[in-house]
């Protein structure tokens, strides 16, 4: 190696070297790494927290309708009001007429029912606030679930105990996929769909076995279909 011909390292074009002030950034980078170790998990935890997924979202409704009273105490079936849930994608809210079937006779002077009576007289709808609100790019179909053994309680929680309806489950994609990956853990006989108290009989193992049997009898799609994007998004 001939030193005379060896270029002096200091002659190397300056632009290939980091400027000296970069050195001061090193401790800053260390702080970022340590901080990031806390920041990133926190971010994910917050992102998945009930606050972010709106669990407990409980808007005020124009009429303080109590499911606890009507369903829990009086034992009305879900499908008396949400009548086309087995046939349509959308589980409809009852027409004012449905309410008035009873309320033309019961509590006819209640102030709380005034919006209902107004609607009945004017023909204008009662404006209920949507509680379970999925993003617009999700196409959830009630009939597809209800007809294949997914009970109301799976997504809506104990509606029969709610005085004012709130969102009980995260309704996030990860939560949906839990069931789409292993539907057998969440299926029930078709006649128990609206039963809020239903529990599979027997121990965990026999419950799973009956779940698998139900899955087969319903002809639930393979997992590959269940987790395809177009199954829910389009």
């Amino acid at each position, binding site marked *: 190696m001939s030193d005379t011909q060896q270029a002096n390292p200091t002659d190397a074009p300056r632009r290939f070297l980091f400027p000296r002030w970069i050195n001061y950034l090193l401790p800053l980078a260390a702080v970022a790494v340590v901080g990031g170790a806390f920041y990133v998990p926190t971010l994910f935890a917050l992102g998945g927290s009930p606050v972010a997924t709106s669990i407990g*979202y409980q808007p005020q409704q124009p009429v303080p309708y109590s499911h606890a009273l009507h369903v829990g105490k009086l034992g009305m079936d879900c499908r008396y009001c949400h009548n*086309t849930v087995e*046939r349509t994608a959308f589980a409809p809210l009852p027409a004012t007429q449905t309410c008035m079937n009873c309320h033309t006779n019961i509590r006819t002077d209640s102030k709380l029912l005034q919006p209902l009576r107004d609607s009945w007289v004017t023909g204008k709808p009662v404006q*209920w*606030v949507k509680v379970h609100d999925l993003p617009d790019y999700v196409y959830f179909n009630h009939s597809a679930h209800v007809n294949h053994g997914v009970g109301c309680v799976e997504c809506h929680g104990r509606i029969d105990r709610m005085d004012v309806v709130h969102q009980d489950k995260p309704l996030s994609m990860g939560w949906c996929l839990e069931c789409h990956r292993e539907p057998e853990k969440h299926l029930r006989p078709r006649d128990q769909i609206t039963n809020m108290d239903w529990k599979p009989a027997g121990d965990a193992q026999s419950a799973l076995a009956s779940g698998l049997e139900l899955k087969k009898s319903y002809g639930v799609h393979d997992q*590959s*279909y269940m987790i395809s994007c177009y199954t829910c*998004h389009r």
Partner: protein
Amino acid sequence: MNSTHQQNRGPEYWRSLEHLADTPEMREVISKEFPGYDASEMVNGSRRRFLKLAGASMALAGVTLTGCRRWPEEKLAPYSTNPRGRQPGVPEQYATAYEFAGVAMPLLVTSFDGRPIKIEGNPSHPFSWTVRDKLGSADAFAQASVLDLYDPQRSRNIVDRTGEAEKRKEEPTWTDFAGFVAKHFADLKGKGEGFAILSEASASPSVTDMRKRLMAVFPQARWYEYEPISGDNELEGAKLAFGKPVRTRLHLEKASRVVLLDADVLGYHPAHVRYAADWAERRRSADDGEMSRVYIAETTYTITGGVADVRLPVNPSRLYVLAREIASKLGVSGILGQEQLSDAETKFVDAAVADLKGANGAAVVAAGSTMPPIGHALVHAINEKLGAVGKTVTLHEDPAGDRPSHVQAIADLTNDMKSGRVTSLVIIGGNPAYDSPADLDFANALAKVPMSIRLGLYEDETSALCKWHLPRAHYLEAWGDARAWDGSAGIVQPLILPLYGGRSTIELLALLTNDTLINGYDIVRRTWQQFLPKDTFERDIRRAIEAGVQNGTEFPVAKVTAKAQDFPPAQPAPEGFFLRFTPDSHTYDGRFANNGWLQETPDPLTKLVWDNAAYISKKDADTLGVETGDIIRIVLGGNYGYDIAAYVLPGQPAGVITLPLGYGRTAAGHIGDRLGFQTYQLRSSKGFDVASGATVAKASGSYQLVATQDHHIIDDIGYKGREKRSGGKGESGRVIHDVAFEEYRKDPHAALGGGRKVPLQLFNPPHTFVDTHAWGMAIDMNACIGCNACAVACQAENNIPIVGKHEANNHRAMNWLRIDRYFKGEPDDPDPDVVFQPMMCQHCENAPCEQVCPVAATMHDSEGLNTMVYNRCIGTRYCSNNCPYKVRRFNYLDYHSQDPRHEWAAPYNNIPDAQQLEQVDKIKRMVFNPEVTVRMRGVMEKCTYCVQRIHRTTIAARANGEDVKDGDIVTACQQACPTQAIVFGNLNEADSKVVHLHKNNRAYGVLAEELNTRPRTKYLAKVRNPAGDEATKGEHQA
């Protein structure tokens, strides 16, 4: 044609003359995925600066916490009383009809929660069903008419310009107008002198009935009917031949030999949907060794010419000459004198005559609007001679046909107006101030009329000149009735209350006549008492409304025979160019000018969007030194010097300039104003369908025409390169296959020309499809007529936005389904062949797009759909770059909220997910299909095989524990196709239709063998049936 390997020669099938010439500019366009897009120009700086900006915007996005918001509160509003059988969120379908230029288009309209959102043909009506599966097809105009319903610029208010300006009411109501009517028409009762009504064509039984009532109240009133596009020559010809008007109905499914003299039976004929279905029956049968042969002599390139087997471009004066020659060779009597024919014409006539003779009555001749009446009479005589009447053509009574021609009517009326004989004029629909012949000067005559009342959908050119303007109800808003081409009557049923308080024609007439009934529904019921028996009327009218058609109301067959008469030679045409006026594929006669869907659906032949132009032949263009986009000056009769942009259309006959009507509107609305050229200015009452003796010269300047023909070209230059690298094995990528019928009959494998059949797969396919369903599609190019019905159906079904002329010029039109039109032939060829190829996502099993997406936003599902997940897409556009079919579309801007007429996009300030709530106009929003996501800026999108329809059908079937049956799932394009060229189904079902089609000898996957993409869509090669030995043989037999 073996010139494929010549130097500087583009592909065998070419999209444009530039494509054929293989110019460097064209190579540039093809090699770039996003032509005209220069990243450095957009950022105006270095890559480093771009990264800085990108980083900064990311940081800002974090600072403003755009993710930390709950989405807006949504309200649910159930009915007060639920209508019986009503299921919220479930689309419902109602039969109705659209009266278009006096002829009903029977429809089935889908309504979602009270909003009509999608228009389809009525499958139970013989004039919209598609013969085999009865899917019900509607054409592009009818389908796009739903957008007019939600046009925010439709007329909303009554305008009163009577009396002194100061005393006028700000917003007059219908009651004010009724008060005026009571006063104004009181004196006219029982007389009616000076009262004239100018109406658009209508054969509606209720309008006819109300017209009779009006004439009873005002006996001396005059009723005129005017349509700018009319088949009056045909009507006049029938009067010449039979002494009375008859309506001609072709039966193309029975005709093995068809000779058309400028008859665009698959394009703008009022019965074209059914004709196309019938025609396709005799084309599809090529697989069974039988096929019709269609001859056409035409004066411009039409879609009918595009699919004809033998095409002869001629100038309009030759049509009658050809008819005379055919007639004389067939032995029709009364042909006086001799004609001089060119070689090409002689060849055409000889082949046609030989075929007509040999067809044994299974032949038909038809003529179009450019044929003079005497020519139509001659065609009737020819059909009689051929024994076609009663078989391939039937003649029907035409009760409404006994009227002066439309040109005559408007000329008479204008004369009366000018001379002051018209004191009160009611104009119903139409737009005569814009579209009447220029020599009549209707607009000035209208200004002379003391009292003019206009009922119109828009406050347009005509309304501006009238004393009263009344908003008209859209046909989806009002009761009415109409008659289809065969005369069968159907009820027009409204699907929504009038959005802007409009009223229908019959309601206005009821108001004028002070009728006891004022409601459209009551008037229709009164009229229909003539069709339905009294004792079961309630039941029967319900059935008629539900079915959309009443059987037994067809026009009866006319018992007529052609009178013996002489057919003298035609007067020689004057020197100079012929001007041939045609309807425009975007605006028809101008009425759809404000309809963005139609504006942006490329014309079938020229692929122009947002404009019309003067179509000129290559030969004339070369002589004049004109290229597409250059301005030419047309001088007609010394009076006009009209400047218009030229479009060089291969196959356009020399000496003929085609002028599509319907552009140059000044009061159409925001979308349609000041677009294209007002070609009505060249149209006179003497030269209504065709004008002759024009001089054409190149003028200075040029005009930006946007034709999408060179957009999204499938790159075969790349294949040429690959061919070189891999040693020139096999053919370069072939997108189109076609075959002559004779060859195909001899060798069923001839269609694909024995292309390379070596599988290229080195490794196992990436996906195995074991699901019960494997969706696939087959498209028969032999049946496709390029009519655009599928393209508009796709736009309506999938919430596809329009982008505007400027963005379309940047290759950014969003249509998921485009119809590629290829020419085949030399540039100077007077008659290049045409192939139409609908092109959309092929759902490749081995999809190139999926392999390059960095965020897995496009991937396969278990049923083989190539899924596109909008909320994953980050807009790298790698997928689009890697798609060999060029079918992916990127939302460069938020097109739904953008003004399509702005050259540069309006600034985009609002937060992204607010757009669907606030930025899109409230009325415009009503047309959206709620089952399809409305895409926002920055995401890629493409054909989904109508996944929403797949799910709707499968979920409903599975709820009953069944599986979908073949034919249950119908995609929007398949549904709309009048010829059933598109078939969708399950490839894992052994006996499904699509499986049979995929096994057809003509079936091939575009670029499947070259790129091994394993597309799920297969195309069936086109079969042509050119005249050859067989035709001559027929002559010998005869």
